[in-house]
Each structure stands twice: as structure tokens, then as C-alpha cells.
């Protein structure tokens, strides 16, 4: 038995390396499946998204602010005015999609699911919270190389876009990048609509933190000064 100890040790080492290899293969396969699924969905989604309107209505003009001479009308209309123009989700298969992301510097174009769940995340990036209209959209995805695995390569100033289901493309520019602890939900939402208009995030390799890309919307309507 003593003579064979070295064999057991070598065997154990081989098994560990094999396990590492199998885990790599499993992850790569999962990533490839996600890539294939996203690609197929994106094709269908693009067909269902209408052409963007020739002249998109400017939010500032959509709801004219009544004059302040009649205070009651001014404030009552402000309360009853629609907060945002809703965009309807597009349902493909059993899942609803709210638009797609185009990240030219990473060579990626990905559909975005309207709601998140762990099974959904295996297929495509998902909306975590907010919307493009309210400038507080947060999109997350797995760190597959075909999804958000390379978003850490984006740099300040990188541009990308999110196209909603009305066909309106919203351009964004990366304003800053941060790494947030996995428990720090508050930090994820801090500064929404003020310091940033859209956030992309995914896990770091350790899974303990989140690589978080904050971006400003370039076609944001000027706020009344």
C-alpha cells in the first residue's frame, strides 16, 4: 500500500486538473449557448421592432408646461401629466424583451429581457431596474465573454446605444467605471438620473463584486433652467 501512495497522489492531481478542465469546458459551452441564443433572439427582435419614427417627439415638447398665471391649472396639470411614455415589451417565445444593446467597441449586440430571473440571465442580459425614459435603467448580464464578460474593457468616453422596442435608439457615453461589493445594493442605485443615466453590470471573476459601467445619455432632453 505504502508503495502505491505516490500513484494515489498523482491520480488525485490528475483528477483535480481534469475537474478544472471540465469546469472550463462547461463554462465555455454555457457561454457559447448564451451567445447562440442571444444572436437568434436579436434577429427576431430586430424584425419586430418598428423603424424609428422620422422625427422622434421631443419629450420637452410632448407636454407643454402651462403658463403659471392660473396656478391651479399649472399644478393640477403637472400632477396629471403622464410621467413617461411607455414602451411595450416584445414577447418572443415565453420571454419579454425591452430592447437591445449595441456595444461597438466590444463588437457586441445583445437583446435585453424586460425582467430578470436566474434562468433568464443564462439566455440574455436582463433589465434589473428602471427604464431608458426615466434615465435610470440598469442592465445586468452574466460575465460570459459573449455577454458582459468584457465590459471592463470599456473606457471612459466609450459610446454605445440602447434601442427600445419603439425603435428609438438612445446613445450613451461611459462616464465612469466602478467596482461595487455584491451586497451594496444602495451604491448600485446611488446617483441614478443625476450622476448617470444607464448602468451595465456583471460579476467579477471571483463573483464577490460587480464591475459597474455608468453612462450618460447623449440625447437627454435639456432640463428647464
Amino acid at each position: 500500500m505504502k508503495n502505491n501512495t505516490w500513484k494515489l497522489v498523482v491520480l488525485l492531481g490528475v483528477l483535480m486538473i481534469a475537474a478544472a478542465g471540465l469546469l472550463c469546458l462547461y463554462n465555455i459551452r454555457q457561454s457559447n449557448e448564451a451567445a447562440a441564443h442571444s444572436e437568434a433572439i436579436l434577429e427576431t427582435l430586430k424584425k419586430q421592432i418598428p423603424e424609428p419614427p422620422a422625427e422622434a417627439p421631443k419629450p420637452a415638447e410632448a407636454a407643454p408646461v402651462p403658463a403659471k398665471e392660473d396656478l391651479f391649472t399649472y399644478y393640477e396639470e403637472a400632477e396629471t401629466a403622464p410621467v413617461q411614455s411607455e414602451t411595450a415589451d416584445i414577447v418572443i417565445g415565453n420571454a419579454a424583451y425591452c430592447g437591445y444593446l449595441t456595444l461597438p467597441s466590444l463588437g457586441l449586440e445583445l437583446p435585453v429581457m424586460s425582467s430578470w430571473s436566474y434562468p433568464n440571465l443564462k439566455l440574455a442580459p436582463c433589465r434589473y431596474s428602471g427604464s431608458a425614459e426615466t434615465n435610470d435603467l440598469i442592465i445586468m448580464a452574466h460575465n460570459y465573454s459573449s455577454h458582459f464578460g468584457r465590459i471592463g474593457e470599456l473606457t471612459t468616453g466609450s459610446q454605445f446605444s440602447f434601442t427600445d422596442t419603439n425603435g428609438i435608439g438612445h446613445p450613451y457615453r461611459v462616464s465612469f467605471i466602478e467596482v461595487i461589493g455584491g451586497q451594496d445594493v444602495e451604491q448600485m442605485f446611488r446617483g441614478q438620473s443625476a450622476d448617470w443615466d444607464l448602468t451595465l453590470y456583471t460579476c467579477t471573476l471571483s463573483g464577490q463584486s460587480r464591475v459597474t459601467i455608468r453612462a450618460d445619455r447623449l440625447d437627454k432632453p435639456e432640463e428647464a433652467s
Partner: protein
Amino acid sequence: MTAARRRKHRMILPLIAAVLLMLPQQYAQKAEAAENKTITLVCRQDDTILSGMEWTLYRIGKRNGSEVEFIPELSGYSMDLGDLSADAVDTAAKTIASYVAEAGLAPLSNGSTNTSGELAFGGLNNGLYLAVGKTLQVGNTTYFPSALLLEINDADAGIDYDAYPKFYYSDLSNQATKYTVRKIWADNDDQYQKRPQEISVDLFKDGTRYDTVLLNAENEWEYTWSALNDGAVWTVAEREIPADYSVMIDSNNTQFVIRNSYQAPPETTAPPQTTVPPQTTPPPQLVQTGQLWWPVLPLSLGGIILIGAGISMRAGKKKDEE
């Protein structure tokens, strides 16, 4: 004690005494400098100079970042001052003026504009001030001043402020005029079920309580009263601001709006609601979006070490056998 040490003490003690004597003077000079700032209200425009316009100045607090830190007398009122931008500051001043009247706050100073249309309030510290004016009749024209929110900070030795009234009326006769106060709820149609059954509103005429009225669903949260249009300045204030709401008060010459906005209690502050379906409600921790990559490195390293160890064990065994 040696003679040399005694000489040393004789020299040091007067120095310490001199320093101690100078300290209060230095502090006094510093305090004097800090309280020597001036706000000058300027009530003139082109050829029109408004002299004799009465103003009252109140110290209401100081600015702390983007927040206003009110003095204790006003801190109990949950006022919605907006973002204090140029657009919002007029309404913020009206809201504060209403609660200055409601709290019966003692003025810091008062006075009238001189023949140049100027009024200087001196001896002021850094902080936020509210200036409230009285109407002024010049011939057939009555000028209605707006409440002004003014700030002195470290950068200012003093400020000159254009206080020329935005409103004036040429034919203000002593006839009965209807004034209306209306409550507006900014709470998504009572989505949070926090509205009170009714609220009490105090009506002030030139800063003195004139009447108290109740607003409720029955009177459609509105009250109208008539009074002689004698140039008095009317303000209104919600006596008790409902819990979980903040108040903003705006007005023109005959209409008063009391707008209550629902403020989620601090412990329930959550991201604003969107059209996101319920299942997208963020969980207490961020979603796990990582693949299981971390074991790859320890497994590989462990495997290599074990194989290495096995090979060296075998080599050692061979040596032993030889």
C-alpha cells in the same frame, strides 16, 4: 531657584500675560469681521425709484450642501423647497415666508428703502435670510414685493439684491376681491393611503393670522374668501403638515396652492417605481451574474502540486530501493 532661572521666568511671564490679553481682542476682531456683512435690497428700475418700501429680514438658517438647515423655530416644518434653482427659489421663498408667519418668527431687522430705493441690512453672519416686503402705493400704482431668499457665504463681503417688485397694479381700488386656496396632493391619487381626512389652513394678512379654515374632500380641498383689496399681503400656511408629506406653497395675486408631496419614510426608500414587472424588484443583494470560474485556478494549481509531489515521492522511493 537660581538667579538665572528667576530672570528667565521674569521674561516669560509678561510675554504669556501679553498673549493672553491679546487673545480676546483677536477673537473679538474675528467675530466683528464675521458679523460685518451686508445685504442691500435695491428697489429701483430705470427711472422708477421705490423709496419708503418696508422690508423685514429674518435669519432662517444656513445651507448645508444642497440642503437647507433651518433654525429650530422652522425645522419642524417639512418644507419642499425643490432644487433651489433659479426657477424654484421664488416658490421656496414663498413657502418659507408662509411658515415664518405660521411660526411667529421674530424678525432680525426691518427698515424702509431710502430715496435711492436702497435698504441695507448690516452686521450679518454667513447664512440664509428671508426678506419680506410690504406693498407700496405710489400715486395710483400699488407695488407687490416678492419674498426673497438670500444667502451670504464665505465668498461674499455682502450682496446687493435686485428687490424690485415683479407685480404692480395701477388701478387698485378698495373693492372686494375673491381669494382662493386649494390643496393639491402629489401622492399618485392617495396610492399610499396616507392622506388625512382634513387639514387646517391659517390665512395671514400682512403676517397676522386672519382666519383658520378646514380643507377636506367635501369642499374639494378648496376655500374661497373675500376681502377688500387694500394692498395687504396675504399668505397661507398648512398648520400641521401630514406625516410622510412635505409642503410647498405657491401663490399669485388671488390664488394660493398648498401642494403636499408624499415622501417615503427613510426606512422604505427604494428606487423609484417604474413599469418594471413585480419580479424585477431588486433583491436585498445584487444578483449573482458570475460563472463558476474561481475554482479553476486552485484546482489546476493543486493538481500540479500533487502530481509534482507524487513524482518526487516515486523518485525518492527509487533512490531508497537502490
